[in-house]
Structures are given as structure tokens and as C-alpha cells.
């Protein structure tokens, strides 16, 4: 086992080297088996304090971090800002300083503004993990996506991936693009022209405003939820039209590789971007992603806050 990441925080995929990504994936792969134990408990993070500071709603990510911390014997505290002093107008800076005064070891933050984790990382001695900042990055999602693909395919290099949906507002899309390219995958993106940010090609991805060419011959298809809460309006006329043009159904799927992997960060809009048959079908790894999410988060907590190398028993 490695001696951990030589960094205090995990703010984005862009900051990670290929070796660091490899270390995180390998560590997570070895920790997966904890989920199948009868007693899901290892003492690795005993006595460590983890605070989940979520400024936005979340099912998967927050539960996943909480379970990851608890399986590793840490003390996990969840702060949902709607029931905290943030409603009284307390600033991020003051929230951060207040938490620092309680000496946590890790703070996991999800926030609607890009760059918020950076602010916290500068204020806290604790390790800060970005659980999603605005439309910027969602590094743990990208890591669990890579793990899921690697698990099925053995290696990542050379695989063709298509990311489909509202790329403009998607932190998952950005982190996935950065992560997949870092590991040598070929990335294509697709969505309505109104949802494709300009200059995207400069990231080295192929850009299509139709789904068919993007998924042709794809090894991996990542479908993004049409994010109604992030729309400012005027980006697409109706869900019906979006679904007709960009929805992934069994028929469209025929264009991809025979053993294509279907991923989705969740939550899914059944019948909008993904048909129920595809979501529940044999190509879908959506639930594997969730399982791998716990493993990735255990790995990160260990690598950032776990102290010395050694077994995780």
C-alpha cells in the first residue's frame, strides 16, 4: 500500500498526475472487498474527524462519503447548510474558520460556486475534498467512473468514450474529460449546440451537436442528466424534444460497440436522457458506479488522512 498522496487536498482532477490517479484507483480496488464483509469495519481512520459540508442537495455523494468514513471507523459529521447558520448569512470564510476551530481532519465540500473548495483549502489545516463545485469539477465522480470502466475493460488507454448532455453546466463532464484524457482515452462530447461550451475542442475532445456520431463505435457512453435547476432558460425548448434528439434508447445504442458500457452519474431522468430499458439493461453500470463510489471515497480518505502505510485491517 502506498504512503498516501503527497498533497493536502483533492480539489480537482486537473491537479492530479497520472501516477496519483493510478494510486487512487489501485487503492480503491483493494478496498472494494470491505463492502462484502459481514462486519463492514476497519480501524484505519479511527479517531479521525470528517465533516461533510454540503451546500447543495445530494443522495449519492454524501451518503457515499458518510459510509466510507464510517466503515473506516472515522467520526463523520454531516452539515447540510439549509439547517445551519449559512441561512443567517454566515460567509464561507467564517464557516471554514469555525470548523477549523473544531479541528477536523477532513472536510468534504459541495458548493454551487466554482472555486469554493480552493477557498476552504487555503483556510483549513484539514484536508479538503471537492465533492462538486459549481460547474467546475467533481473529481471523485470522475475517479469512480474510471474505476468502473477499468474494472470491466482492464485498461483505459485507447478506449473511446462519449459524454452526452448539458456539457455547459456539468462538473461531471469536465472532470470526466480531464480524467479520461489523462489516462489516454479518446473523448467525444455531444449535446445541443446551446449546451456545448465554446472552445471545447481546445481540450482535445471531438465535439458533436448530434448524438449519433458521438456514440458510433463507442466503448463507453456517459449520459448526463438534463439539469433543470442549472438552466437559465432558452437552452432547449422541451424535455420531449431533448429526449427525441439526445435520449439514449436501445435503438440508438446499436451504433455503439457490442459490449458498450453505459454510465450515468445519477440521478437519472428515466425516459428523458436515458430510457428505462437502457438504464436497467445489461450494458448499464450505473449501480456499479455507486458501489465504486464508496470504494473511491474510502481510498481518498485513507490516502489523504490515513497516516502511515500498512494493512487496512
Amino acid at each position: 500500500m502506498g504512503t498516501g498522496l503527497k498533497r493536502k487536498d483533492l480539489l480537482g482532477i486537473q491537479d492530479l498526475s497520472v501516477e496519483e490517479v493510478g494510486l487512487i484507483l489501485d487503492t480503491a480496488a483493494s478496498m472494494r472487498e470491505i463492502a462484502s464483509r459481514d462486519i463492514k469495519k476497519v480501524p484505519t481512520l479511527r479517531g479521525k474527524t470528517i465533516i461533510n459540508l454540503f451546500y447543495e442537495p445530494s443522495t449519492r455523494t454524501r451518503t457515499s462519503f458518510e459510509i466510507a468514513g464510517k466503515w473506516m471507523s472515522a467520526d463523520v459529521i454531516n452539515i447540510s447548510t439549509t439547517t445551519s447558520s449559512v441561512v443567517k448569512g454566515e460567509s464561507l470564510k467564517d464557516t471554514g474558520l469555525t470548523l477549523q476551530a473544531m479541528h477536523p481532519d477532513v472536510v468534504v465540500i459541495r458548493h454551487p460556486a466554482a472555486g469554493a473548495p480552493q477557498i476552504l483549502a487555503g483556510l483549513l489545516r484539514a484536508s479538503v475534498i471537492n465533492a462538486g463545485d459549481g460547474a467546475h469539477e467533481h473529481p471523485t465522480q470522475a475517479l469512480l467512473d474510471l474505476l468502473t470502466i477499468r474494472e470491466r475493460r482492464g485498461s483505459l488507454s485507447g478506449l473511446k468514450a462519449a459524454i452526452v448532455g448539458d456539457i455547459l453546466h456539468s462538473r461531471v463532464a469536465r472532470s470526466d474529460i480531464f480524467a479520461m484524457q489523462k489516462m489516454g482515452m479518446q473523448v467525444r462530447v455531444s449535446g445541443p449546440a446551446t449546451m456545448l461550451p465554446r472552445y471545447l475542442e481546445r481540450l482535445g475532445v471531438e465535439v458533436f451537436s448530434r448524438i449519433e456520431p458521438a456514440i458510433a463505435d463507442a466503448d463507453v457512453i456517459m449520459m448526463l442528466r438534463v439539469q433543470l435547476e442549472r438552466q437559465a432558460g432558452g437552452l432547449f425548448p422541451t424535455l420531449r424534444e431533448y429526449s427525441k434528439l439526445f435520449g439514449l434508447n436501445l435503438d440508438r445504442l446499436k451504433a455503439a460497440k457490442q459490449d458498450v458500457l453505459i454510465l450515468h452519474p445519477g440521478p437519472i431522468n428515466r425516459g428523458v436522457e436515458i430510457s428505462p430499458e437502457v438504464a436497467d439493461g445489461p450494458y448499464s453500470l450505473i449501480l456499479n458506479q455507486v458501489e465504486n463510489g464508496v470504494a473511491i471515497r474510502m481510498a481518498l480518505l485513507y490516502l489523504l488522512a490515513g497516516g502511515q502505510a500498512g494493512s487496512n485491517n
Partner: protein
Amino acid sequence: MRILIEGGRVIDPANNVDDILDVLIEDGRIASLGPHRAGREAPPPDRVLDARGKVVCPGFVDLHVHLREPGREDKETIASGTRAAARGGFTSVCAMPNTNPVNDNQSVTEFILDRARREGAVNVFPVGAITKGQKGEELAEIGELIRAGCVAISDDGKPVMNAEIMRRALEYAGMFGIPVIQHAEDLHMTGKGSMHEGFVSTELGIRGIPAASEAIIVARDILLAELTGSHYHVAHITTAEALRLVREAKAGGLKITCEVCPHHFALTDDAVRSFSTNTKMSPPLRSSRHVEAVKAALRDGTIDAIATDHAPHTVQEKEVEFDYAANGVVGLETAFGLAMTVLVEGEVLTLNQAIARLTCDPARIFNLPRGTLSVGADADVTILDPTREWVVDVKKFASKSRNSPFHGWKLRGEVLATIVAGKVVWELEG
């Protein structure tokens, strides 16, 4: 009171002067400029400033500052803002009306002028609002504002979105011959944008403001200026597209002028990668394509003036998430250093041209009796060392606010002394 500034290189672009001369100031006015001589004037001056090896030029004129008083004295006051101006070599500033209350009536104008008279270190020329409360709906009492002392009108901070209102404002202002200054952006296109829409905003996932947002309003307003024949001035211009339109309009003989801010020629949107809120302002820092266009426009005269858009903000309004931070940076105390280091050393402008863009050019386009060292003119003089290196330290700012993206920058070109109406209002220690 007689002051002799001796042996300096006097650069006065308005009068085509660039020579080693002595400048004699008497009773607050330029009394004479003559060849340097060791023999003294009789009677002996009350003070002699040794300007040998230095540059002596007219005091700078800033067409765009926010002095924040009345209403936000926590960020800046007329006293502190004009001290910051003096420290930056500015002897005249135009104060924008987005105060609280808005300067949309003569009482606020009179208050500002009165405060400036009592506590201001430099000349303050108020800019009045175009519309009542800057709401963009009804014209303010523009005639009264001018009679009270306003030299231009603007709803700065915001654009006048309604083309009909903008047309009537230009028509009405045309009666008085004053410029109508537009903060050019289409608010619908800006939406919740926080930075320039470009590759950097795509990578950072921050909502972008397209260059077209500025250019669309400039295009519309140029047509209105053509319709009305009035003087239209684009505040803080930043885009290649808007500059192209202004260039074409000027060539067509229309009364169009514009200004650029130092941060828009010194920084690109790459600076936002740090997420520092001192890189957040409106209009935003643009990509290098636009910065190059700005420099070309300064060189070919499409841009008339360098103005700072000095926008002080408190620490708590800036020390927040990028999306939530207030827009704006201070600029009075770094403007000359940046002009020298980026434009003159960068061979975009000569020293004389840079001084012109800071003195006679802004004064001329706004009809202000400033920006020259003509005999009989008010003795507003700045003494500079264009080669001296210094490091920007926001803690030393005279401004109450510290929101500058240039802290720690090594600049060349420092202001040594600033004189307003024959009185030394600022000088560098040592």
C-alpha cells in the same frame, strides 16, 4: 505662492512640448515655462522642486472613478479617493453617479462638489445619472445636473438597456454638448456570468459573458449617435468587436469616443484561473485576442483615453466565492506604472503618447479645462520618474480599499509628486 520646478524634461503633448525646461507656478497657475537656467527667478520662489532627470507633465485626468461617497464611505470617501488619485499622479477625476443616493439631482451633485472643495485633494468633476435612480426608465434632470456642475452623464454600473431611452438621452444631452457615457453590456446576455466567455470559462465551468454582449450595445448606440448627432462615449471598452465598430464610426465622422482601463491591457482572462476575486470586474478581463486589439486601438488612436474605473470594495465583499464577489478593482495608484510597464516598455505607445492618453486627450474629449501646461492654465502638474522600479504594495495605498490584482507586481514608472492648483498635494518620501 511661487513654485519653481527646475531642470525637468517637460512633456506637454497638448502644446507639443518635450524639452528640458523650468516651470514657474504662481498663484496656482502656470506662470511661465522657460529654458533651464542656473540663475534664479526674482523674487526667489517659495519652493524649488529639483526635477533634473525626471519628467514633468500635466496632472493626469481620470474620466472614470468611483468615489463611493455619499453612501458607501466604508469603501472610500471623496477625501480618501482623491488622496489615492494624487498618489497616482491624477489631478482631476470624474466621479461616477452610482452613489447612494444616486447623483441624479442637483443636491447630490452639490454635496459632492462641496465635499470635494473641503476635503478633496484633487479636482472632482461629477458625472450625473442618465436616468432617475439609474433605473433606466425616465430621464434625470440633466439640465439641472449640468447647471450644478456635472460634466457628463452615465448610468455606469449598468447599461441603459432601452434603446428609446438611450436615444432620448443622447438627443437631450446634445442640447448641452455633454457626452453620454455608456457602460456597454446586454444584461440578458450577461445573465449570471462572472467572467469572459472563452476557453478559460469553459475549462473553469464559470458562466461566461460573451464579447458580443458589449459589442451589441455599442453597435446599437453608434446608430443612435448617428441619428442624434450627439457625443457618445464608451466606458471601459474591452472587445475587438466593439473597437472595430468605434473605429469605423470615427472614420465616418461620428462623435464617438472611448476609454480603456489598465487592467484590460495588463491582464487576460487567464488571470481568473487563480479564482482570485481581484480578477473579477465588469466588463471582465478578456482573452488575449481582445487584449491585443485594445493595444492596437491605443496605438492607432481609436481609444482616446486611459481611465481607471477605480472601484473600491470592502474586504468582506471580495473575500467570498468568485460568483458572489462584487465586481471591480481599484486602479488610481497603479495606472501610470502599468501604462509605463505594459504600454511604453511594451512598445505600444511612446512615453509622450501615454502621457497624452492620460492628460490632454481625456480632458479634450470631455471639454475639461485641464490636461495641459499652457501658460495661464491651472497649475496641475505631475512629476514622474519613468524609469524607477517599484513593487505594488496594497498596504501602502491611500485608498481605503485594497482590491487590486497587481499586489506584488514590479512596475517601472513612479509618480514622485503631484501638484494641484499650485499646491503640492502628494510627494513620495525620499
